[in-house]
């Protein structure tokens, strides 16, 4: 009997040990799924509100169709994933899986609170951003493996866009690292004391980072890779069933990771924790999640407002406007350091 209790205790300890809890439960896999469920439902509800219609309604009517996506996911699971005869089968099948994984793996480097993280590294900002860059390469591979002209064009669009958004994304993130004098996400949060959130210190970096987060996850107005009226579904044209579901989820996961990073770098992360909640071990994580969700809602709301840019216009924007802006944000950070606004 004691043995069983010991075993149970060991299992609970294992699950709640940070190096398992962070990648698997929060902010990892389980939370990722809940966030996807929520944000896709909310996106559809929000767009429906603007467009004078109901949106998802009939699956769990009491909550306004909140679990519509569960039904969709089940349908994806049981639908036959059709693999085209002429496709490169291995790459075609593994592409979406790797794409989803590459979007979600960066969560391991993201700390949830001052003392709760999978591992502490003094370059965790760089690790999480670096891991995110796997995605576009895999998108390109899926586009090629599908052996379809629309997929090929979509993959190439992703390739071109990657060039345009990744460099300024890194520069604007690193300008914040320069400002705080560290690349450790925990120290970044801890150095945002009082009103000195990154958003107020360096708004240029915040704006560029947000725009590039939209661009890199093909949200409107940069929904260029999957532009439906032009190239059907871009690199994912040939996918069906759960493989398609993974490709669709991947961009939301990537957006979620970028929003976590945004709230850590610019919105003070898990701070401020209200006094009456300071005893709770989950309060910092919940605050971080809520901040990220707020940014995600802002991001998905763009769907209701904007049409999409053309690829050359988005590239021009990336190279001619966003890149100079991100370089400007570096100088702003250096200026703030020189003037002694931050120590």
């Amino acid at each position, binding site marked *: 009997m004691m043995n069983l209790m010991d075993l149970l205790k060991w299992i609970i300890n294992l699950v709640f040990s940070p190096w398992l809890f962070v990648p698997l439960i929060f902010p990892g896999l389980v939370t990722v799924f809940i966030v996807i469920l929520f944000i896709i439902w909310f996106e559809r509800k929000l*767009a429906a509100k603007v467009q004078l219609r109901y949106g998802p309604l009939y699956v769990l009517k009491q909550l306004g169709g909140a679990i519509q996506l569960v039904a969709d996911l089940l349908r994806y699971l049981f639908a036959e994933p059709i693999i085209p005869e002429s496709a490169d089968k291995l790459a075609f099948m593994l592409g979406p899986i790797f794409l989803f994984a590459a979007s979600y793996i960066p969560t391991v480097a993201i700390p949830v609170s001052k003392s709760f993280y999978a591992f502490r590294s003094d370059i965790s900002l760089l690790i999480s951003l670096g891991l995110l860059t796997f995605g576009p390469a895999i998108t390109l591979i899926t586009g090629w493996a599908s052996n379809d002209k629309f997929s090929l064009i979509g993959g190439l669009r992703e390739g071109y866009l990657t060039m345009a958004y990744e460099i300024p994304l890194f520069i604007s993130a690193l300008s914040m690292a320069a400002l705080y004098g560290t690349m450790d996400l925990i120290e970044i949060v801890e150095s945002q004391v009082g009103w000195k959130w990154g958003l107020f210190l360096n708004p240029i970096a915040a704006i560029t980072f947000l725009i590039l987060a939209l661009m890199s996850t093909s949200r409107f107005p940069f929904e260029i890779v999957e*532009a439906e009226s*032009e190239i059907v579904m871009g690199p994912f044209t040939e996918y069906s069933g759960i493989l398609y579901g993974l490709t669709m989820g991947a961009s939301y996961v990537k957006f979620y990771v970028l929003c976590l990073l945004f709230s850590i770098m610019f919105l003070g992360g898990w701070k401020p924790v209200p006094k009456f909640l300071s005893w709770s071990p989950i309060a910092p994580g919940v605050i971080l999640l809520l901040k990220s969700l707020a940014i995600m809602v802002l991001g998905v709301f763009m769907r209701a407002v904007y049409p999409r840019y053309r690829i050359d216009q988005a590239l021009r924007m990336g190279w001619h406007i966003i890149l100079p802006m991100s370089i400007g944000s570096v100088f702003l950070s250096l200026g703030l350091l020189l003037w002694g606004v931050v120590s």
Partner: protein
Amino acid sequence: MSEERIIELLIGPQHPSSGHMRLVAEVDGDVVVRLKPNIGYVHRTVEKLAETKKYIQIIPLVERPSLADTANHNLGYVLALEKLLGVEAPPRAQYLRTILAEMNRIHSHFYGIGIHGIMLGSSTVFMWGFADREIMIEMAQWLTGARLTYSYIIPGGVRRDLPQGFEDEMEKALRYLERRLEDYDRIFIRNPVTRARLEGVGVLKKEDAIRLGIVGPNLRASGVPYDVRKVQPYCAYPELEFDVVVREEGDSMARLLVRIGEIKQSMRIIRQALKQIPDGPILSENYLKMIPPKWKEFMETKRRVKFPAIMANLRPPKGEAFSRVEAARGELIYYVVSDGSVTPYRFRMVTPSFRNVVLFEHLIRECRVADIPAIYGSLDYFPPEADR
């Protein structure tokens, strides 16, 4: 080693934004070198079918090719038929025809704007366009009894009189649509992304537009003030005041703005027509006298037409007739040849979309792949109307 630079992209007929047609695009990188529209997927032999049908049966037939624009197709055919028969509708019927035609123009333009919106990626404008189109459909349903295929205009008149209280409801509907147009202006037309996508894209020069025989809003967006309602007025148009909306730019944005402007002009026409509409019968005296007195009483109380028996077997005298009207998408031509029997000897309809299809090849050249739907949407091209 030979290098293949150009890939052939088959857009449609199973493509989210191709419509019932196929666009064969030759693409060099992201630049469209050449595009050929492949039409005919929804050809329904309307012209040949009309030669087997009686004159009155052709009315529902000509409505089918263009479901967004049925009243104008109906009107065009009936005008040609009336010329053959030598009858003319009374003034009240002429006004009712004008009102329905303009209501149809409004909902056809909203349809076009909605489709254009989704082709650019703005799902909001798509949903709004299709929702606001519904206003005019509901009003037309009240007037005619059908949502889309009204078959309202018959030789010598119209089928029904204005319902009680129609003017007030129409005023409400028009006020609502005016408010909505301001919302469109805010979210779509002044949207920087829309402007970036449409301005300077697919420019149709004035001389090219004339040379290619383009009609309708696409022609007027290139600076040619040609409108059949002004050039060869029919129905109540000579008595009504309205402007021909013209823009000089000739790009996709101009075509969109011309449509918005025409919606406003149509509202103006409807308001005037409802104010000026004269009292009187809604069926020509030629047919009215054939209706038995009992049915005449019915007609007066119910304010709707009871068809005289002769309508079933109309036999126009030998001859030919030609009519043209300004449909929502442009000039619509009907040509009917009668050999004195109950069916036409030859029936010809030239639809505006068919005359505009040449623009695909002309405009979508040396532009980006993403411009294909942007230009396609701006043309308001409707494949079934072109294929007939």
